[in-house]
């Protein structure tokens, strides 16, 4: 019997310890409320701050925090406070954090960065009537309840500021066919992500429908560094352009190893190429005749974009990239919606967002019925590792 009481006490103690953990930060970064609750508006920042996709999450966190800081500066007081959580790139963790953000009473959530983690959170956030703005969840039909069925309902409270994979993949196919006069393409993509797979399909489909031929399709997995074996095989084939569907961390190495393997045709890619690291990885001498689609480029930057770049550099002492720019836009979009609505009531906020006209640094847009922005795709060319020309492309998708 004595033993029983001992165990009971231990059990009680551990319960208290566990609850204490729950109330506390529980391993994630603690919410940073400094002022009283009544006169501040909480904005949830839900990102991948550690783990294999932490690079995107950290860039986006910086973009979002800059937007919040600027809004507070403009208003002269601490109106907006961020509630930041790290989902470690784990969809299960992301769901838990989405619920916790709803409990925290945030006006809206920006993030996560990746499509996988984002999809996981949508149902929870939607059920709790929390507005979510995804900076970079580009997967096809991502904002729909059932992404495999284009006819299904749109999540009422889910929005995104980036264009779909289909859209930019098709735009690049159009550019390759029309502007570069290519008729034979090889597609080499990252099949470990929805992003890469969506782009590969979109490019191939549109390129074929235009009358081109996709000679071969190869795949790699994010995190690999050795591509020369596949590229040796590619180099032996007859083709006009090579389309790389993936992010800069692998694409930079692929470009370097492709040029070393004697592939000197144009190399094309998606907005995942947008990073200063690309030229470091590929080597400036190899970054010629390389094109990528993007909504964000520093070529011919507008005044607003230049102001963002300067502010970002001053704050963090590094160059912004596409991810930080998209997160900056997402956060500003949420702030603008809150200000236009004059309330944080989710229903009003959602309606305001549906009809909003937003001028961002990654383009001005309105939302279509799937809560995806309608904005032009830019094709940017690298010359000696420097982004030079930007051409606006509009894929003729509806035929």
């Amino acid at each position, binding site marked *: 019997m004595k033993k029983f009481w001992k165990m009971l006490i231990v059990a009680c103690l551990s319960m208290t310890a566990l609850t204490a953990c729950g109330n506390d930060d529980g391993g994630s970064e603690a919410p940073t409320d400094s002022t009283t609750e009544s006169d501040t508006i909480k904005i949830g920042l839900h990102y991948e701050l550690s783990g294999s996709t932490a690079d995107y999450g950290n860039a986006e966190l910086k973009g979002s925090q800059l937007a919040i800081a600027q809004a507070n500066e403009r208003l002269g007081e601490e109106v907006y406070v961020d509630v930041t959580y790290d989902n470690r790139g784990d969809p299960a963790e992301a769901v838990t954090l989405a619920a916790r953000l709803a409990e925290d009473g945030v006006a809206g959530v920006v993030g996560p960065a990746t499509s996988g983690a984002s999809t996981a959170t949508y149902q929870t956030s939607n059920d709790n009537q929390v507005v979510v703005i995804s900076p970079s969840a580009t997967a096809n039909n991502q904002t729909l309840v059932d992404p495999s069925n284009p006819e299904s309902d749109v999540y009422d409270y889910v929005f995104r500021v980036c264009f779909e994979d289909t859209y930019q993949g098709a735009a690049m196919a159009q550019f390759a066919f029309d502007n570069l006069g290519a008729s034979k393409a090889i597609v080499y993509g990252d099949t470990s992500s929805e992003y890469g797979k969506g782009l590969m399909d979109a490019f191939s489909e549109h390129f074929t429908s235009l009358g081109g031929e996709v000679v071969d399709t190869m795949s790699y997995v994010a995190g690999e*560094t050795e591509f020369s*074996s596949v590229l040796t095989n590619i180099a032996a084939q007859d083709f006009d352009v090579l389309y790389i569907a993936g992010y800069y961390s692998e694409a930079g190495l692929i470009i370097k190893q492709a040029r070393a393997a004697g592939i000197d045709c144009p190399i094309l890619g998606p907005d995942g190429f947008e990073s200063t690291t690309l030229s470091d990885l590929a080597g400036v001498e190899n970054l010629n005749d390389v094109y990528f689609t993007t909504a964000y480029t520093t070529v011919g930057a507008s005044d607003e974009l230049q102001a963002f770049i300067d502010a970002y550099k001053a704050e963090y002492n590094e160059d912004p990239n596409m991810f930080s720019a998209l997160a900056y836009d997402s956060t500003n979009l949420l702030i603008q919606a809150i200000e236009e609505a004059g309330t944080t009531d989710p229903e009003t906020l959602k309606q305001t967002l549906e009809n909003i006209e937003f001028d961002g640094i990654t383009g001005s847009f309105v939302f279509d019925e799937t809560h995806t922005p309608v904005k032009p795709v830019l094709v940017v060319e690298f010359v000696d590792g420097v982004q030079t020309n930007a051409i606006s492309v509009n894929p003729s998708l509806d035929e």
Partner: protein
Amino acid sequence: MTVFLQQIINGLSLGSIYALIALGYTMVYGIIKLINFAHGDIYMLGAYIGFIAVTSLGLGFFPALLAAMAGCALIGVIIERVAYKPLRHATRITALITAIGVSYFLQAGTQRVMGTGVKTFPNVLSNEVFMIGGVRITSQQIIIFITTIVLMLVLQFIVKKTKIGRAMRAVSVDADAAKLMGINVDATISYTFAIGSALAGAAGVLVGIYYNSINPLMGTLPGVKAFIAAVFGGIGIIPGAMFGGFFIGVCETLIAGYGGSLYKDAVVYIILIVILIIKPAGLLGKNVKEKV
């Protein structure tokens, strides 16, 4: 044919890296029967130490290589002292789980200190291309290959000809008997960790130079592949690890090169399964009956 030869060259460069990492696995297993899953992350730390040596201290290739080897040797010894030594007489699974914990600690720690993103390793070696009968060989590939071979010869010399090597072999056969013969078992285990980690550190720098991209999670996959290479050659057997490393590297590039790029990892795991079914002691291993 030239394409095939080209793939073999690519495979040998990749295999050199696996072989260097596999040696550490096999040495540590040979001496304390521990699969050191943190070994892949020591390789990652080697790349980062090399990176810091080149960028911040402005060192060249060989000094950076030596710095990484020395740094990793030290880290390996510290890890052994802090994490594994207290568990020397615990069950094997305890040590194994600790090794996985150390692996996560090193990854997360590096992410915290060095940032989560990809770092670009500066070009400290010129990369000339030689064409031999239609096959492209770069000077970096040659340096990787030569460095690996030299390090292996040095290792073979240490293990076979020196006092330390003899102590290592003695401890791996029977630690208690070795102790009775006056061998300092703890020091010998430390030396083993130091040498194994130094080889992984060298591999890290070579990869940094070859692919010029390093990141805090780069150790995981090569770590697993090198582990398979060690098992393939016969875990605990040094020539087996070298052979296994080169075999896995060439195998992987040939599969990737001939259309199966998505299946190359799967094939490597299938090799592991097949070898464990057919010859569990590894290709060069002998079946030793355990006394009960």
